[in-house]
């Protein structure tokens, strides 16, 4: 290997589409990682926030687009802006508060002040910059920002297609279905679990539409469920679900097709595990239809959807990945609730989230363990491929792309094909 032909120049060797084989370097090569940050995270739409996290004029949150720390903020007119958290003078971060409300951002070093839209408003003692200093050329570095269904995405790429085109019609349709877990109320982020895992970001990218691991990795979680709920999660045995390539690297894993559209389930009897909850909500004076809707919302819809490259809709929460280094990735699991809904329903959602998710959940630590084991395993046998070919044998055409068995690795193949498309220099 010579310096002028780095190994990632051979994309076919890194991801072999026909045989669905991923090369070990994909998780291991720091140069490739840097290249991914440039060609993927600086080029495509990256999820940065949910609108409920900064609901008011002047409210903001800190986020990340690839390796770039950004501020997502609503201005006085309610318009959303996203900019790199860096003063144009000498680079200091202008904000270190994770979430809050402000009327402007001021650099703590020399006092340069920026408006909520990132424009430079004030420079102390400006005389020494001369008369031709142009404030309009010294605003914070802005990203393009667009939202869909309350999900806010940003991109450094001025030429990127409109967000809804990048998402595509099927993703947009499923996003609307996913948000029905507001139970008639707006969906609100109630909190988040954060944990870092010593793994490449693509190990996580593969996981959200991987049903194959569920009964193995999450056996100890299943053991703490009652029989009916366990049955709900027995999607591998029932074999009614599917995984489908939704285009542009996105994919859906429909685990419980009977829960694709919560509004279509309103005639179903209330699950025994939630009968007590229904009774509590009835006592608060909600109509029987509302009670059913809210209880269904607490259970959440029956699918996981993975969006390339960094966010997924996972039954009843958002999962966000942030690449940090070739072998380090940060994960956020955001708990969702009903804004203005019954407190008892939101409490139940929180307890369900804590049950599976986060550093002390009954599920996430086992996920984190196997992801780390993948990263550790790739230290040996570099010449061996990673197989994502499961389920190719019985894939059929879906709406946007192939559709396979619920445990098929169709979603991973969708993601890697998009990865390859974006990494291709010629494209």
């Amino acid at each position, binding site marked *: 290997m010579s310096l002028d032909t780095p190994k990632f120049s051979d994309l076919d060797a890194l991801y072999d589409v026909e045989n669905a084989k991923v090369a070990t370097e994909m998780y291991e090569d720091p140069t490739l990682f840097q290249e991914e940050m440039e060609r993927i995270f600086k080029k495509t739409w990256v999820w940065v926030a949910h609108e409920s996290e900064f609901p008011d004029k002047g409210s903001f949150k800190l986020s990340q687009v690839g390796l770039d720390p950004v501020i997502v903020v609503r201005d006085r007119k309610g318009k959303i802006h996203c900019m790199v958290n860096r003063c144009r003078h000498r680079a200091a971060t202008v904000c270190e508060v994770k979430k809050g409300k402000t009327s402007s951002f001021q650099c703590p070093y020399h006092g340069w002040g920026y408006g909520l839209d990132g424009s430079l408003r004030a420079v102390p003692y400006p005389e020494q910059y001369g008369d031709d200093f142009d404030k309009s050329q010294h605003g914070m570095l802005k990203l393009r920002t667009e939202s869909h269904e309350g999900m806010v995405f940003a991109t450094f790429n001025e030429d990127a297609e409109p967000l809804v085109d990048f998402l595509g019609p099927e993703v947009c349709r499923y996003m609307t279905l996913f948000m029905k877990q507001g139970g008639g109320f707006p969906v609100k982020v*109630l909190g988040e*679990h954060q*944990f870092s895992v010593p793994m490449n970001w693509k190990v996580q990218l593969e996981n959200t539409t991987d049903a194959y691991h569920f009964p193995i990795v999450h056996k100890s979680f299943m*053991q703490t469920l009652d029989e009916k709920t366990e049955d709900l999660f027995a999607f591998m045995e029932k074999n009614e679900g599917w995984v489908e390539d939704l285009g542009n690297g996105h994919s859906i894993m429909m685990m419980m097709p009977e829960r694709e559209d919560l509004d279509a389930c309103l005639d179903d009897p209330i699950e025994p595990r939630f009968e007590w909850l229904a009774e509590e909500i009835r006592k608060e004076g909600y109509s029987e239809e509302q009670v059913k809707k809210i209880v269904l919302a607490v259970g959440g819809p029956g699918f996981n959807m993975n969006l390339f490259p960094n966010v997924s809709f996972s039954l009843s929460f958002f999962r966000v990945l942030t690449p940090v280094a070739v072998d380090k990735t940060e994960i956020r699991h955001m708990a969702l609730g009903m804004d203005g809904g019954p407190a008892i329903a*939101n409490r139940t959602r*929180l307890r369900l989230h804590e049950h599976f998710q986060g550093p*002390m959940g009954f599920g996430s*630590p*086992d996920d984190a363990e196997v992801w780390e084991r993948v990263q550790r395993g790739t230290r040996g046998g570099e010449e061996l491929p990673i197989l994502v070919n499961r389920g190719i044998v019985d894939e059929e055409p879906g709406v946007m792309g192939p559709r396979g068995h619920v445990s098929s690795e169709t979603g991973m193949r969708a993601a890697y094909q998009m990865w390859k498309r974006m990494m291709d220099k010629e494209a």
Partner: protein
Amino acid sequence: MTEMTKLDPKALLADVTEFLWLEADMLDRKAYGDWLDLWLTEGLYILPIGDGEDYENQLNLCYDDDKMRRNRIDRFNRGFSISSAPAADTVRTVSRIVIDSAEGDLIKLRAAEHLIEDKFGRQRIWAADLQYTLRVTGDGFKIERKIAKLLNSDGMLNSFSYLF
């Protein structure tokens, strides 16, 4: 014990210190059956996130009543959870014990916990502020509430295969 606690604050500090150290030792040895016996049935074991104190209505790392505590220990013990088979080894110290109040059979106290975990040849270090509500019973102290607030509870953590 109740009588003694009223009379002698130093003796009370020695008693609760002994209790906390025994608990810390149980957790490092993963003697979870013994640990469960330290609890009142109505007890709550909470690892909160951030500064909020409305634990019931906020997202926590864990919010365990008796059933969840037992499920959690069962999960650790049964061998089906890959992150707990084996779990990380831990060594912890509990110190800086301050008794906030001791009235009747109810004692409220705070303490500092430093813990180092070891797994896969790497070590990680954690610090937590502990808050206890203890009841004095005929069977010694029992835990009514334990809140373990990690120093970086609202920051980037790792997954835990043990208790604080």
